[in-house]
């Protein structure tokens, strides 16, 4: 047995420090293309993490998460298109609120079902949103979508005003907002509320007996999850300056975060983030050198389910454990 030596306190800041330095320097080193790929990754990391709140922590598989993502994206796009002088942060906040509002509206219905019925009901609701978006042409411009809306500058009156159109400027905005979202979600899992979520997943009866109102708690979880998905959608809208039903409400938009959560490692907080990263890299390689993106995704899903059920994070932990064991046995 080797006694564990407590490392000095400053070392705790080494890794986050390096991470922050990489994040800050990233766009300067890698240029526009990779900066935009990173923004795409970050958007989907937050989107997948918001789904993860339901899947990993509350045990509910949503097949219609595009409803909240798309709701947020359209709210931001329409607000910027129709309200003159709309600020940047109000626009993003509108997106989050729209996601939350959609979640709040459907939660009484979702509260009544669990398991596969829940998955199918969310699938139907997501599909309904897709159809409605195409149908309500006068507001949403149908399949052509809402595009070319003004992207407001980031401005603190009298102090500074920065255009958000250049990729690098937008990068910093996006990672700050998405980073805050991830931190908030992480923080949430560490609070008593996070424990209640896990309780609902593992033993809802017990949570009920403890005196918590399960439907109300679930409703709150949906709303929070919808809010973060809405923020992700909102940043997506600003990033692309174009929101279309096929882009944000399509059934694949609901499936993508599920794949990310599962590939990254279900049941962990880091899973969806790792999954988003991994799938972004695979998409990049697949579209660059082949036309077989769909096949790669299919094979990846089958392999992960059959052989690496704990996903990427699980694999990482396993490797770490193996290495650690080797060291201690030496």
């Amino acid at each position: 047995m080797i006694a564990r030596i407590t490392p000095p306190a400053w070392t705790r800041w080494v890794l986050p420090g390096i991470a922050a330095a990489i994040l800050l320097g990233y766009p300067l080193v890698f240029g526009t293309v990779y900066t935009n790929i990173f923004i795409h990754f970050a958007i989907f990391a937050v989107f997948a993490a918001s789904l993860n709140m339901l899947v990993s922590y509350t045990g509910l598989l949503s097949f219609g998460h595009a409803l909240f993502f798309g709701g947020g994206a359209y709210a931001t796009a329409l607000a910027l298109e129709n309200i003159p002088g709309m600020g940047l942060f109000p626009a993003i906040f509108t997106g989050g609120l729209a996601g939350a509002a959609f979640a709040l509206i459907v939660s009484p219905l979702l509260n009544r079902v669990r398991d596969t019925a829940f998955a199918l009901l969310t699938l139907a609701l997501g599909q309904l949103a897709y159809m409605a978006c195409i149908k309500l042409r006068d507001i949403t411009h149908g399949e052509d979508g809402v595009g070319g809306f003004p992207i407001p500058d980031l401005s603190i009156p009298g102090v500074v005003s920065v255009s958000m159109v250049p990729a690098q400027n937008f990068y910093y905005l996006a990672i700050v907002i998405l980073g805050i979202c991830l931190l908030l979600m992480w923080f949430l899992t560490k609070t008593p509320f996070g424990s209640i979520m896990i309780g609902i997943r593992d033993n809802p009866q017990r949570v009920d007996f403890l005196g918590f109102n399960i439907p109300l708690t679930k409703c709150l979880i949906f709303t929070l999850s919808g809010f973060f998905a809405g923020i992700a959608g909102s940043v997506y809208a600003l990033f692309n300056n174009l929101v279309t039903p096929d882009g944000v409400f399509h059934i694949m938009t609901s499936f993508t975060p599920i794949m990310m959560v599962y590939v990254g490692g279900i049941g962990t907080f880091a899973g969806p983030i790792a999954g988003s990263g991994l799938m972004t890299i695979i998409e990049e390689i697949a579209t660059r050198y082949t036309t077989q993106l769909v096949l790669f995704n299919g094979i990846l899903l089958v392999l992960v389910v059959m052989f690496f059920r704990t996903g990427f994070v699980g694999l990482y932990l396993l490797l770490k454990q193996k290495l650690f064991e080797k060291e201690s046995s030496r």
Partner: protein
Amino acid sequence: MIFKHRKVLYRVTFVLSVAAVFMLGPLGGTAPGADSSFDPAAMSDMSDFDPNNFQQPEGDTIKLGYLQIMSGAAAGNGELFWPVVTWVAHDINKRGGIMVDGKKKKIEILKGDTQGKPAAARKETERLCLEENVDLLWGTSGSHTAKAIADVAEEYKVPFLNCLSLSDELMNEKNFNRYTFRTLSNTTQWNMALSYYFSKRPETKFSILCQDYMYGHAMADAFKKYLNKYKPEAEIVSEDYHKLWLKDFAPYMTKIMAANPDILYTADWLPDGDNLINQARSMGVNLPIANIYITNPDTLASVGVEGTRNMIFCYSWMSGDTPQTKAQKKLMKEWHEQWKTWEAPYDSLLYIWPDFVVGQTISDTYWLFDVIQRTGTLDPEKIIKVWEDDVYKAIQGVRTMRAADHQAVFDMYVGEATYPTREVYEGAPYSEGYAGVHKVIKIPQKYCTPPVPEGLKDRVE
């Protein structure tokens, strides 16, 4: 019985008279006032062309970014136009390339997979522009993805040939940008041409059945508007919009039969268009169907001679069984000869002749490179200068790039499928097992020129 004969008589007189009115001038004659024209004599020997094995040139090249859907269920789009771009590139490369910036350069084609999604289209376009440094962009199916590409094209100042998206809004004052040029007929052109054509026909009762989304409604609205203009006595007896990817057309057919129209108008694309005609015919609905995209030889052959008779096609490129120009005749024959040697997936009937959208995009791609040749440089600003107000005698018809809104204007063509056509000369297009277009009717440009969007009128003096 007499009634039936009278109808035939009408039709024959009509076809003859319309043909007499519209038949083009001398075949292959030079167009007065054209800045440049396609020269069929310059076309290379294409016997070594193979779309499965396109020879990318080495060294300093002109880079064309080919943006299409290449993965997923709609990957057929990316496949369909690959022989188009590689054909033109191969031809020009064999001629030794194009003189730009004092150097003969050959054409290299770089693929970008849009996945049919604007976000992916944007990302791929960005990659092609920044990493591959493409000089030109080529695309794409779906107005929303075309919009995403056009935005990036403007950002990085790369000329973008949009020869596949037809939404009017794409080139209006809000979405217009200087780097995007559209050579496909837009919603208005299409429906002006069809409406004008119908003004010369005796039928007065029309039914509309389109897809229930922006495109379907835009097409139907334009059709109603211009039919009313060209043929005020015409009447829309039923108007329906079905959901995308509809499975069962029968309820609509019953409704249409009850309305008893003379013509059924649809703008459906695949698979809806295929299913529409198949199910209509199987239910005994034998109306003439005016359409745009039901041109797949496989579908037509499956519906058969009786089923395809009376179909009315409208396009900016149409050969019928007798190609309209010498250049078209040469391209048709040459392509068809080569097609016989191609391997899967390009061995299917879809590629048998470069007609309709295939012919149009070939022609547009030649136009793009003709402009580059005349510009003599890859400087986007100079390319724009040459292309604006350019008058090009294309493989079929004369095409003018309007400077104000970068929308190409030209004659349109309408053809009615009457009976299976013949192979008039070796390699000539014919329709085996279905009714093909025998006589192509030209709708002169002045009847199908869309108005310039308000805000763009005084963009150029």
